[in-house]
């Protein structure tokens, strides 16, 4: 296995050389740089102070709370990010988890835009447009990508324009970070500077938009329907799938005394493990047989229903359909198409 993974990475000699060289440059800079410029620092500081004192009167007035630009938190961006994450991944996700994850990124997006404006960082619109054009032309020329794209827009009831706008907004943030690195002419590992830029931006934004953030988080979290935690109950022997080793599928009873899975996210792991050949047979795209993703859920289900009509697959298909019925109930508050 180690050899197989080695084949996957290739030798990576070039990358190794580059990283070693940069690491050693940094190391020597760190080790000897300080001594070399030790006596230069006080002089530089004094000169800088003089310079600041000279140009201070010429500067525009300092930003105050009243004229500081604060990028609003974009609800539409948040919703598209959350729902596309929920539908595009290879597994089902609870709305609560998706909301938390995308609250983080939506706040960070506004933070970066606010901080970039504060720091006068330019946005390269041409580059953004070029990226989006390339992406869209790829979708047009790739049948699977086009199919997934259209299916997603249809399920989420999104227009092409709305989704393009979302892509532009995402690309904009990335461009800002790149421009920041470029404009500041920063040396050393990019990752360190990016992390620092993010941290400064978040701190700045939280300082100036704390109330807006709190309200936004509160409003978005109300989308999640609070449910009483499930208490585990034994699996009734009358269930078809109870004949298999089904211990992973812990069942609980909801407020309406219906069965739901306590850990529904592992349902597909269980199904793959127990009914792999059936799932492969039912896969709408044989290239991605184990991407049991929400976009294709109904296609899988329809194919499994068809397989249940064939004697070869009947028993297993009926067991899977029984599991899927409970699975759908477990996610009905998270995915409207399951209601």
């Amino acid at each position, binding site marked *: 296995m180690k050899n197989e*993974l080695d084949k996957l990475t290739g030798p990576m000699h070039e990358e190794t050389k580059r990283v070693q060289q940069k690491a050693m440059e940094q190391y020597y800079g760190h080790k000897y740089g300080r001594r070399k410029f030790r006596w230069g620092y006080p002089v530089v500081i004094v000169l800088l102070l003089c310079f600041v004192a000279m140009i201070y009167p010429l500067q525009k007035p300092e930003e105050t709370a009243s004229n500081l630009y604060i990028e609003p938190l974009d609800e539409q961006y948040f919703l598209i990010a959350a729902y596309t994450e929920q539908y595009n991944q290879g597994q089902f996700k609870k709305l609560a988890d998706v909301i938390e994850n995308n609250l983080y990124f939506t706040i960070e997006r506004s933070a970066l835009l606010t901080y970039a404006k504060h720091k006068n960082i330019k946005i390269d619109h041409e580059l953004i447009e070029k990226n989006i054009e390339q992406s869209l032309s790829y979708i047009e020329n790739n049948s699977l990508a086009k199919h997934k794209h259209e299916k997603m827009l249809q399920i989420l009831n999104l227009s092409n324009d709305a989704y393009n706008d979302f892509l532009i907004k995402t690309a904009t943030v*990335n461009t800002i970070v790149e421009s920041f690195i470029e404009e500041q002419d920063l040396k050393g590992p*990019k990752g360190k500077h990016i992390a620092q830029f993010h941290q400064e931006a978040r701190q700045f934004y939280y300082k100036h938009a704390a109330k807006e953030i709190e309200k936004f988080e509160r409003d978005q979290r109300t989308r999640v329907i609070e449910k009483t935690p499930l208490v585990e109950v034994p699996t009734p022997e009358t269930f078809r799938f109870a004949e298999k080793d089904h211990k992973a599928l812990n069942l609980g009873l909801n407020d309406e005394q219906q069965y739901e899975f306590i850990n529904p996210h592992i349902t597909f792991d269980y199904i793959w493990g127990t009914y792999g050949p059936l799932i492969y047979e039912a896969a709408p795209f044989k290239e991605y047989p184990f991407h049991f993703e929400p976009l294709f859920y109904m296609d899988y289900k329809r194919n499994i229903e068809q397989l249940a009509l064939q004697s070869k697959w009947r028993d297993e298909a009926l067991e899977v359909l029984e599991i899927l019925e409970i699975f759908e109930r477990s996610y009905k508050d998270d995915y409207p198409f399951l209601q």
Partner: protein
Amino acid sequence: MDFERLVHTYTNYLLKLSFLYVKDRQAAEDIVQDVWLKVMLSKNEITNEKSYLVQITVNQCKDYLKSWRYKKVRVIDVLGFERGTSQQDELIILEEKSAVGKAVWQLPFKYREIIILYYYDTQTVRDIAFTLKLAEGTVKTRLIKARKLLKEQLNESDWEVLNSEE
């Protein structure tokens, strides 16, 4: 700590480990550079250098996978219109690399991670639990599950070769 020796001994290994984690060569380079920066600035005494470096690398990889930079790649990736390095890497796997490697890369992250640390970094279940801050039982369960998923994705001969390594 002999920084120069560490850099020359482990850079290639950490690059490969990062690449297996993040599937992006450029990102792997950035990650390992950050690892060396952390090591350089660290004042900690290192007792087990390899385990220490692997742990920092794994944490850096996870930070990257949570970052905007990765999120942007994913937005593009999930629709299947990946570009640049990621796309090239994927193409290399699909066209040239082994079926086993391809199957590992198609595993969900939590299983892929365990396979990488167990087989590539040859860590024990206990070490993996320590590195990932998980219970040993969880690591064992994920390892079993990961192998099961691999078995389903591989044909019989590939699986037999893999299984005979046990």
